[in-house]
């Protein structure tokens, strides 16, 4: 199942930060990881990925560094910063609350049933 882009847009930075919190990755690897770890539910458009990474970098939530590959090509690896971790923790808390709230409204996993 694919999400509407507007819905995904809000949580895309959190998703990227969450994945990078488990280890540094380069752009292609990151896009693959998002799809695989979300069971193909979350698919970040390729055209969105790189601008998103640069925006996160501008906010100093992640940092990138170039590494030389044996093939001769360079790769830019992104890793989460301590500021990024703090930001992620806050976002996760809010998401949890949002999920709980949505559960109540829509009756996911018990609680009040919709009218």
């Amino acid at each position: 199942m694919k999400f509407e882009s507007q819905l995904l847009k809000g949580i895309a930075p959190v998703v990227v930060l969450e994945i990078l919190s488990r280890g540094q990755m380069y752009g292609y690897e990151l896009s693959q990881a998002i799809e695989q770890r979300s069971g193909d539910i979350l698919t970040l458009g390729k055209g969105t990925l790189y601008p998103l990474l640069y925006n996160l970098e501008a906010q100093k939530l992640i940092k990138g560094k170039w590494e030389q590959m044996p093939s001769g090509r360079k790769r830019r690896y992104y890793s989460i910063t301590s500021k990024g971790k703090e930001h992620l923790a806050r976002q996760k808390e809010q998401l949890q609350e949002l999920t709980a709230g949505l559960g109540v409204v829509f009756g996911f996993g018990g609680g009040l049933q919709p009218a």
Partner: protein
Amino acid sequence: MKIQKIVWPAILGCLCGLCAIGAIIAVTLLSGIITVEFCVNGGSIIILSFFSVMGLVIGSVVGFVRYNKSIRSASISELKLDSLPQEAYDYIMSVGRYMSYKFKVRLEVMDELAGHFDNELKDCSTDEERQQKAQKLIEQFGDAKLLGILLRRAKKRCRPLWRTLLVRTFQVVSVFLIIYLVWFSSGRPVITIDYVEELNKLNRPSADESLNAAPLYDKAAEKYSKLPDNIANLLGKKYDDVNDTDKQAIEKFLNDYKDAFDLVVAGTKKPYLWRNLKSTCVSDTIEVLMPYLSEYRRLAYSLRLRAQFRARQNHLEDAFDDIKSCYCFGRHIREGDKLLIEQLVGIAIEALSVQTLRRILGEYQIDSSKLTQLQKDFEQMIAGENFDVSFKAEKLFQYDWIQKCFTEGGPGGGHPYPQGVRKIAQASRDVNAPYHPGFQKMTQAVRSVNKKESRFVDYLENSGTAIAFLLGLSPGRDETLKSVNGLYDFLDSEFALKTPAQVQTQKTEIDKKVKRLTGRNYLIRILVPSFERVNQISHRLKTEVEATLTMLALLRYKQDKDQYPQILDELKATGYIKEIPIDAFSDKPLVYRKTDSDFILYSVGLNFKDDGGQTARDYKGRVNLWAEEGDAVFWPVQK
């Protein structure tokens, strides 16, 4: 960076610039558009320097662009984009192009995108599969232009704060600069006051118009308008210096133009000279004055020539009449609050008169009664004469230029108007060029004598528009008016009353004061007269007149008492002179010494020091009463 890749094109550009302007100068010189004098005077050097620097700059820029282009090509080839399918290559290049950002950043982004494509395509076994997969990935990335824009925005956010601030500041300043330039270049002066009319008002006498000498002088000048060239060339010469053929021509001329002489003499009997100046347009202030001065100058030289001729014919009294008429004529032109150029022409004519008189006194034996009468007449003529120069009309002249060179209203009361400033530059350099060369010299003498300011005038003239921006930063109309008022009040109320000797001793303070009043306002500085020189010229006349009267008294004393007095005080004590003549260049009495059978009478001259009566000479060694070095020796009369 290999510097020679820039240096060689720069040198080549410089040489091209020099060759181009060299060719232009040669063509314009041959076709007569510019003169050799212009080239020799440094005009060509300025242009050559300008074009060589322009060539150098253009060459450097071309070299740098070419070098930069080669560096970029090499950097892109390092990305190994060739290993990707053509579609992917084109897409990545398009994204890089649409980013329109710093090359280094674009290169990094393109490298990252190339890596992404490489990873996606690494498992493809055939070219067809690679192409299909690349095409699919391109679709996933979306429109290259949109991606480029998104990437640029994101990368811009990565800039450090100081850099963002710098860019924003630059943008704001640029916007203001553009607005300022539009405002600056769109301003025009508003002409509200006709200063020619103001000049008329300043000098308009209350007396009856029938007492005005101007109609008579103008009528005489009209007769002179068809003066033959050979006579016009003889006017500046002394009668005794010309050959017999020329003497005959002069005699004929004096007879033929008797009517004109009579008109001038009749004019000198009138109490005043006032010309109602009529301008064809308000920019005419000074131009309209010049032609009449040129004609008047010729009339004065003619009177001198007739005086010399009459003296040679032994008609000394007639000669003295012409000399007196000449003096009155000069005084008429000068008196009142006239423009400086008029005052200077008047002074020159008065000086011409007394110089001619001294020469005649030195050459002819004249009896005491005639000398007495002559001295009496001269004393009457100069009674009440104010030798000080007036700067009132000159101030109006400055007001006129301010009116033409500044816009009206806005910050500072208006800003400089480039075309008006260019006009000033031309006017201050060769305002009288179409008229008589004598005026050209005179104007140069009173304006822009400072070499530095002269160069500034050239600069203004040659690149008036380019300098406009700089002028925008120069003082506005209000401040310029304030400076002009301050300066001319000082010149009229303080400076004009000082003798050259006082000016010399107070030079530092005067310079400081003038500098404080004019500041760095070049517009005023190029228009302000060389007041020191003007002051000297007026006091030279006063000294010459007093010296001439003293000479008359001394010659009379000799005839009456068969010897010259020991000191000038004896002349005063015996009633031959009313006051001891004062040398304005020393503020002491003129130097008088009795010699064996003669005497010497002199002023210390322009170097302000007593050289023991050594005659002043110019740099060519010719006798020149007011040369920079030596004394102004009035007697013995120098040949």
